[in-house]
């Protein structure tokens, strides 16, 4: 089991390293939010440009983690199509190890992306002392694991690389917009506040924001509990799908059939 998880993580990180230019490309989106959208909206908001950038820095961090974790999870859909994975499937490794390996590898990739974004914090006016940085990295780690689990739990149900990005956008963007990443949930309409309580991204962003600003929207234990619950439920769901694929070599996706 452990060696299986390890092998999958090594595989994914090696492939990630081949495409490491993506780390730079992955900076573009959060920086756009931070310095273009942030400057525009900030100037017209009650907070003012500087405070607003500082406020949305944890939000853009959440965005970056969310998208890079999901992007990593898409490899599951690709893996079904490349031959190499057939060799993985006939190795004496439990399917759950493949699920855990994928989640862990995705979280590591997301965290790597996040750590590259982190040094931009002072530029966004979000200077932190050492303790805050440690808190922030802790929150980022939990967020990365949560988002990676979300990505894997979704990706393992898809057999098509064309449908998955569409569906993931339909899920990811609403999750991000409802998370309060770009505005204070405190001033949001009641329905949005209610919806945010059901949005794991909101808890993750709030934890990160708390470590930068020192104030939280959700009580910290609630956030930690909500994220732990999300991870547990989705890991369980993903493992179930992966195990279902044992007979048909499809990793569980219903519409995928191996050539006879």
């Amino acid at each position, binding site marked *: 089991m452990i*060696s*299986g998880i*390890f*092998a999958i993580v*090594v*595989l994914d990180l*090696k*492939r990630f390293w*081949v495409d490491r230019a993506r780390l730079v490309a992955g900076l573009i989106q959060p920086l756009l939010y931070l310095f273009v959208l942030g400057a525009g909206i900030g100037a017209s908001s009650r907070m003012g440009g500087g405070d607003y950038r500082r406020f949305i820095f944890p939000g853009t961090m959440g965005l970056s983690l969310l998208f890079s974790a999901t992007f990593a999870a898409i490899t599951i859909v690709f893996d079904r199509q*490349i*031959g*190499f994975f*057939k*060799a*993985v*499937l*006939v*190795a*004496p*490794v439990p399917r759950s190890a493949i699920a855990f390996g994928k989640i862990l590898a995705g979280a590591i990739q997301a965290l790597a992306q996040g750590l590259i974004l982190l040094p931009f914090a002072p530029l966004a006016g979000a200077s932190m002392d050492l303790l805050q940085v440690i808190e922030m990295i802790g929150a980022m780690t939990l967020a990365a694991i949560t988002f990676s689990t979300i990505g894997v739990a979704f990706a393992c149900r898809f057999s098509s690389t064309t449908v998955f990005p569409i569906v993931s956008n339909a899920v990811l963007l609403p999750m991000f917009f409802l998370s309060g990443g770009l505005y204070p949930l405190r001033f949001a309409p009641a329905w949005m506040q209610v919806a945010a309580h059901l949005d794991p991204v909101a808890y993750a962003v709030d934890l990160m924001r708390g470590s930068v600003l020192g104030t939280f929207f959700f009580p910290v234990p609630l956030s930690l509990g909500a994220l732990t619950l999300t991870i547990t439920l989705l890991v369980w769901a993903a493992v179930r799908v992966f195990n279902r694929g*044992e*007979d*048909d*070599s499809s990793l569980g996706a219903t519409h995928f059939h*191996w*050539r*006879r």
Partner: protein
Amino acid sequence: MPPTPAETADPESAAVDVRALTKHYGKIEALRGVDLVVGRGEMFALLGPNGAGKTTLFSILATLRSPTSGSARVLGRDVVDERDAIRREMGIVFQEPAIEQRLSGRDNLMLMGLLYGLSPAGARKRASEILGQLGIADVAERLARNLSGGQRRKLELARALVTDPRVLFLDEATLGLDVDARRIFWGQIRGLADNGRTIFFTTHYMAEAEVADRIALIDAGRIVALGTPRELKTRVGGGIVSLRTDDDARARAWMRERGFVPEEGGEGITLVHPDPAAILPDLLRNLPVRVDRAEVHSPSLEDVFIKLTGRGLDTGGKP
């Protein structure tokens, strides 16, 4: 009969033991009752046209699919109940490429080693060893996508051998290779078999099946013949006259009138006769059609297949 653990540990059990095996995909019956026993250390070929059930049988033995009914055991272990035990002892070369194109040869092998529980250092060492043994040490640092077809297939073989498997499954392993590369590839496989490994391979190239100790001919989900290449050929019962004419239908009709029995199907006309050389002059002189080509030869596996199924090996479906 459910297997007991004691039975499965038997080192004397056959490498492959298949009983009354069927596999249905919805309404399609891919396998309709296959019985097959392959001994340890044997080099065994499963020969048949595309769509005959080769890959299905292969996938079941390689623990990639479950049987619909019947049983299949590899090294004495049940392919469903003892899947992981089989997986630890077998290697597979797939029809499709199964190496990660974006990684180097060594990384590909190393990852396989990790999946089979080797330590990183152990996997690395094993990767170098096996590349050396197969004479492709130079692909270690190169990305798989930059390799030639023959090198890639050797890397596939290396991947399957990383764990030193006792049974090696090869599914159309030389698809797309040129004649030279194929000859080299089979030379290496023969070497592996001579070292005591069991080799089970599928193919639709006749010449490839000839290298096997025994061959099973499969057609429409059933084994239609089983034996050594020599045994199978004697089944044809004599030599072969092959004719190409400008009107095969008329030629066949004429031959039947004269008491000859040309085989149904295949390309041109195939006639099996105990003494083909003796009847050829008569045929050439008297056939009421123009004969473009005439040939006398001892039977090939293709002739056996035509004789048994009424069809050529290449007519079963699209590749």
